[in-house]
């Protein structure tokens, strides 16, 4: 759970690094969740929401939130960290329409050719199948289109800034890398990524290819798990309850009846033979 390491005037509550997967059910039928990711390298910023300073001295690579906001449209402006107000933003102002019951991440990032911009992503909170997790990859780097490799093979191809792709896969550890599309030489990674049951692990490729600052940022949202759909824990019928209801007919039951009938006819044959004179040799069959 979250704990306050320090409450300074600048940064607000600091929480443990990335290990806490926030439950998906923090949102409600009237509110949206908004996370904000600072993915512009080397530039601390201030973030204003509807004209009010909301994030002060926000550091590159940090993730803020969730902000629990009533459904509606919010105007976001991002300024240099030492700006007096939001009159001269470096990004925005942009309008973010937020729907109730939905989780969003707003990302301040470099466009494909290096111009700072912002993109609003919707986080997929659909339940995962039992034993599966979700991997979401978002390209927010100043770089051309990329492929995402898992274990050396592309699982996502031709992903361009500022698009996303996602896939559900079996829980486990994946060795992930990012390469220029159509190639397999990593520009980021390979690095181990934990795919966890019921968790949407959102990976952001951010930074600048030219400046050599490409990196992966990770956000996790949990609480998406499903229970197994059955517990089949028996197969031999050795401890079955006696059946007071009409017999459960099935192929097995029919075989039992036939076997019973065969046993009956054999015993009749045996009793017939016993009535024959003993001089005919061995009794029985």
């Amino acid at each position, binding site marked *: 759970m979250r704990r*306050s390491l320090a*409450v300074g*005037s*600048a*940064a*607000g*509550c*600091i*929480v*443990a*690094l*990335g*290990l*806490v*997967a926030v439950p998906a059910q923090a949102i409600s039928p009237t509110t949206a969740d908004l996370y904000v990711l600072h993915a512009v390298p080397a530039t601390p910023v201030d973030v204003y929401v509807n*004209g*009010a*300073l909301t*994030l*002060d001295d926000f550091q590159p*690579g*940090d*993730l*803020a*939130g*969730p*902000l629990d*906001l*009533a459904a509606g449209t*919010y105007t976001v402006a991002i300024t240099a960290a030492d700006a*007096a*107000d939001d009159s001269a933003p470096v990004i925005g102002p942009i309008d973010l329409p937020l729907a109730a019951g939905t989780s969003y991440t707003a990302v301040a990032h470099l466009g494909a050719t290096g111009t700072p911009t912002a993109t609003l992503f919707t986080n997929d909170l659909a339940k995962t*199948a*039992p034993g599966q997790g979700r991997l979401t990859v978002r390209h927010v780097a100043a770089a051309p289109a990329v492929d995402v490799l898992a274990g050396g093979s592309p699982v996502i191809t031709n992903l361009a800034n500022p698009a996303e792709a996602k896939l559900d896969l079996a*829980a486990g550890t994946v060795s992930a890398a990012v390469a220029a599309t159509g190639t397999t030489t990593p520009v980021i990674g390979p690095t*181990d*990524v*934990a795919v966890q049951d*019921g968790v949407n692990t959102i990976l952001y490729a951010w930074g600048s290819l030219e400046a050599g600052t490409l990196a992966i940022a*990770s956000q*996790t949202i949990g609480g998406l798990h499903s*229970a*197994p*759909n*059955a*517990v*089949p*824990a*028996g*197969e*031999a*019928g*050795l*401890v*079955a309850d006696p*059946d007071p209801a009409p017999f*459960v007919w*099935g192929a*097995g*039951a029919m075989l039992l009846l036939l076997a019973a009938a065969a046993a009956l006819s054999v015993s009749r044959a045996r009793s017939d033979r016993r009535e024959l004179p003993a001089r005919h040799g061995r009794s029985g069959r």
Partner: protein
Amino acid sequence: MLALIAGCSANPAAEHPVPSAPATAEGSVGPTPRPAPPAVPIQGTDLAPAAEVMPPVRIAIPDARIDIAVAPVGVLDTGVMELPAQVDVAGWYRFGPGPASAAGATVLAAHVDSLRYGRGPFSRLKELGVGATVTVTTADGAAHAYTITSNERVSKQEIPLDAVFDQAGAPRLVLITCGGQFDQGTGHYLDNILVTATPVAG
């Protein structure tokens, strides 16, 4: 209009009124300290390994003469819970809580019988009464004691698996096997035996 912002602070409007426009962009006597915004949780984005759950390795229920090993299991491709083939090894659902978890159900299941191994120790689960003691030992050697609070036979058509495999709520132990009538045609029992136990305090 300020949005309702939930964070470490309850009343953002009182804590930072919207600042009035500065008289000039330059030449102020000295910087007016801006009111601090309400605290918003901030976290880093380094890739982190999966959270590890301390696994159970043994379960003992003296009243049912059960003392068997526990192995972690997941699901099969069909989405059903995987179970160890041996009847004398219980499977722990490894995607859910464990005995040391702060919340939710630790689920252990074992075959009541198998064609290969015959009748198993969990065939005696249905004999257990409320109040019986269960001890689950985890890999670190810690012994976790529980008291049985319910023991029921539930139709597989009706068993509330979302509640059984609940990862939230009070920490508890759930033991599952099969029972009831047996369908010769499908080779399956019609019911699950569902035993719930709560941790012994201290």
